[in-house]
């Protein structure tokens, strides 16, 4: 209630003695936690000095504390009628309106006082996603890592994405991009046959559009159709020979099919295109192991462990190294690797079953 104390001092400049007395009594009661008494005193102040905007502001703030949002909103609005320049009233009114779901109405008040976080949320609630993202990003820059801001920014970005895609599909329902967007939606909810259908429709129109084959490959991979995934990823690597991800995905599919040599070649290519990617290095180790090339597997996993120390991939690399060393009869080294594996074993995600 710092605002109340500060405004109290300002208010005394033009307030009647009776009004000042009630204001002081209200502040005292508030400090003692006697909210009912504070409300009564601030109401008396508004009666004795009906043009005293600060009295309405203080009254509104106490009402906010008692969760009487309609009462608080009425008080803040009256305060602003009496003094439109009262920024504290704009801020509190913006918060109160937002809390009650009147996001659109809250926006101008929050804008005026540059309350970026609340403004961003209000804009998101009101469907002004781009503005919301801008303000939430600015707020996040001031408070890096704030979980609430991260959540709202992510949520607003998602809503903007959906809005944009909706607009796309509404305007061009049969376009390749619309089919792609539908494919993405189906993929997310694991409706793989429908996703495949949409991607195939998109590819029929624009077979050379980047990423379509890759996304179709991911659908096949999700459904564990590895031969079809291989075909799709291979098509993407032809379209984008410089894409490390396409090479990695193709290598991973080949690995699943047990084609160790081809997988290793593709994963080595991915590693050259974008070195030091832990996922690529891990899969490269697996491909080498599949080929029986323990030296290359050891090299890939050891290198991975210089990049990642305590992740699931690191744990899996330790597990792979232990298997190599066990097979080579290096019992102590295998034991050490298993000890490292056990440290981070819990980070390995469980296998999916559905």
């Amino acid at each position, binding site marked *: 209630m710092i605002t109340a104390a500060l405004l109290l001092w300002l208010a005394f400049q033009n307030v009647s003695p009776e009004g000042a007395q009630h204001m002081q009594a209200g502040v005292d009661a508030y400090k003692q936690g006697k909210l009912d008494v504070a409300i009564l005193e601030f109401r008396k102040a508004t009666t004795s000095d009906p043009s005293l905007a600060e009295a309405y502001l203080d009254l509104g703030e106490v009402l906010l504390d008692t969760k009487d949002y309609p009462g608080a909103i009425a008080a803040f609005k009256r305060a602003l009628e009496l003094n439109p320049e009262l920024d504290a009233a704009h801020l509190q009114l913006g918060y109160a309106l937002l809390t009650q779901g009147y996001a659109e109405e809250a926006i101008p008040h929050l804008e005026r006082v540059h309350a970026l976080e609340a403004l961003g949320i209000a804009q998101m609630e009101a469907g002004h996603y781009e503005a919301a993202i801008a303000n939430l990003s600015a707020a996040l820059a001031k408070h890096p890592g704030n979980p609430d801001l991260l959540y709202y920014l992510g949520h607003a970005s998602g809503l903007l994405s959906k809005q944009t895609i909706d607009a796309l599909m509404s305007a061009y329902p049969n376009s390749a991009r619309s089919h792609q967007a539908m494919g993405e939606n189906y993929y997310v909810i*694991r*409706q*793989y*046959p*429908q996703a495949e259908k949409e991607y195939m429709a998109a590819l029929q129109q624009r077979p050379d559009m980047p990423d379509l084959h890759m996304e179709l490959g991911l659908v096949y991979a*999700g*459904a*564990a*159709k*590895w*031969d079809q995934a291989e075909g799709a990823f291979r098509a993407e690597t032809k379209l984008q020979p410089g894409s490390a991800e396409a090479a990695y995905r193709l290598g991973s599919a080949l*690995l*699943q*099919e*047990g084609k*160790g040599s081809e997988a290793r070649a593709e994963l080595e290519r991915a590693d050259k295109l974008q070195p030091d990617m832990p996922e690529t290095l891990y899969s490269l180790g*697996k491909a080498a*192991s*599949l080929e029986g090339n323990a030296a290359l597997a050891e090299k890939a996993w050891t290198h991975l462990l210089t990049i990642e120390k305590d992740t699931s991939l690191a*744990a*899996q690399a*330790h*597990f*792979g190294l232990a*298997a190599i060393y*066990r*097979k080579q009869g290096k019992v102590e080294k295998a034991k050490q690797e*298993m000890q490292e*594996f056990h440290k981070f*074993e819990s980070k*390995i*995600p*469980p*296998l*999916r*079953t*559905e």
Partner: protein
Amino acid sequence: MFDVKALRGVDFILQNSPTRKKFLIETMPGGLALFDYNNDGLLDIFFVNGGRITEDLHVPENFERSDPRYWNRLYRQNRDGSFTDVTQAAGLASVGNGNYGIAVAVGDYNNDGYPDLFVSNYGKNVLYHNNGDGTFTDVTAKAGVAGGGWSGSSGFFDYDNDGHLDLFVTRYMEWDADHNKICGGAWKTYCPPGEFPRTTNLLYHNRGDGTFEDVSERSGIAAKKGRALGCAFADYDDDGFTDIFVSNDGMQQYLYHNKGDGTFEEVALDSGTALTEDGKAISGMGAVFQDYDNDGRPDIIVTVLPRQLFTLYHNEGGGMFTYQSLETGLGGLTSGSSGWGMSLEDFDNDGWKDLFAAQSHVLDNVQDIDSSLQYKMLPFLALNHKGHFELAETGVTTPIAARGAAFGDINNDGWMDVVIATLGGPPVLLLNRGGANHWLTITLEGTRSNRDGYGARVRLNGQTRFATATAGYSCANDKRLHFGLGDARTAQIEVLWPSGTLQTLKDVPADQFLKIREPEHP
């Protein structure tokens, strides 16, 4: 490969009784046994039934097993290939209302020449002694093998080589009707095993006088809790003592090394049989412990749920295994598979053991959650081409909710057949169409070793089988050892009996059922 045939005279329906309450046991039964209970040379079939479940099921559960619809069933095979229901006459009708049936094991525990039955249940387990006159007697109380909780796949084996079959019983989890859960949010699905506490497996030592001693604690078997669904036996390190592999659901697998002194040590992590090559746990369902690549050492294959790969641990010797699902081609064939009962059998008699698995997802509404998955599936068959697996057609064209699968030569034509148990439905018989290759089927008769010869290592023309009736999920296979010979017309046979006796037979003619009796004197 197979013709789908009706089992004439078999009217069995596996009553798993699915409810909206999703009691986990509903999706787990399906044991069956192929065995010759009356020694007439024809395989008979024993089916384990589930029981009646209602949505108001509470502890103590009543599965109404006295109602004939929920009986286990024994069908005697007749000379014309048809079957006759002999359940009641054999004394196998009553199993106890508190017992929901899961699995069956077969072994001649008293060495009298007649195979006995052990039925494992959620509830109490039952040991039936085969009286040799077509009837069985419930000897559970005398034998002391009732156990309790949720028992599953079981098997007879002789862990101390004393000539008497001991009994291993897997248990799945700590569960009862009052502690059931429903998962999947709005989907309402059966819960994954991690929702329930782990439990211990059971090991019973056969005293040789018709009674067993629970040695689960003393042997070290109970030292580790798990969520076991399958078990398989073989001597993986060639030390003369049979070891145990246990497939656990949703956690690491267990390999119990038999130390030869009556105790076991769980060595899966150190031997490379605990996890995938990525260090991930699997949903271990059925398990088989046989030599798929004819290198003379028993390997391990585990059936799992979709998005995982059937797991193949190759025995490298020296007590070490390597994960080789991808190298063998099995991985690429099974990423969409949901396997249960399975076995390595040489279906085309080419001298290489093929892999057959009964399939169906554990969730009966999985398609609502992921439209690329189905509850009912076709069985899986991969033919073994010198250690590399390639997909083959089974002949089954209608998806089924399969669970247990038992393997044997039903019609004694020298070609391995399959019987599959299906939830809520009749069993499916896959009769091998046969071909031109030669074969040899061996019945072991132990004298100093256990009479069934379980645990014997039989080598034949470069192939190896480890004698057991236990494999896959909840089932007992034809105990006869079947070998495909390709174009060979004779066989060189070497039998290493559990007693340690090594017996060789030379130039044995192909295409016959051969009985090998263990020499009474070494």
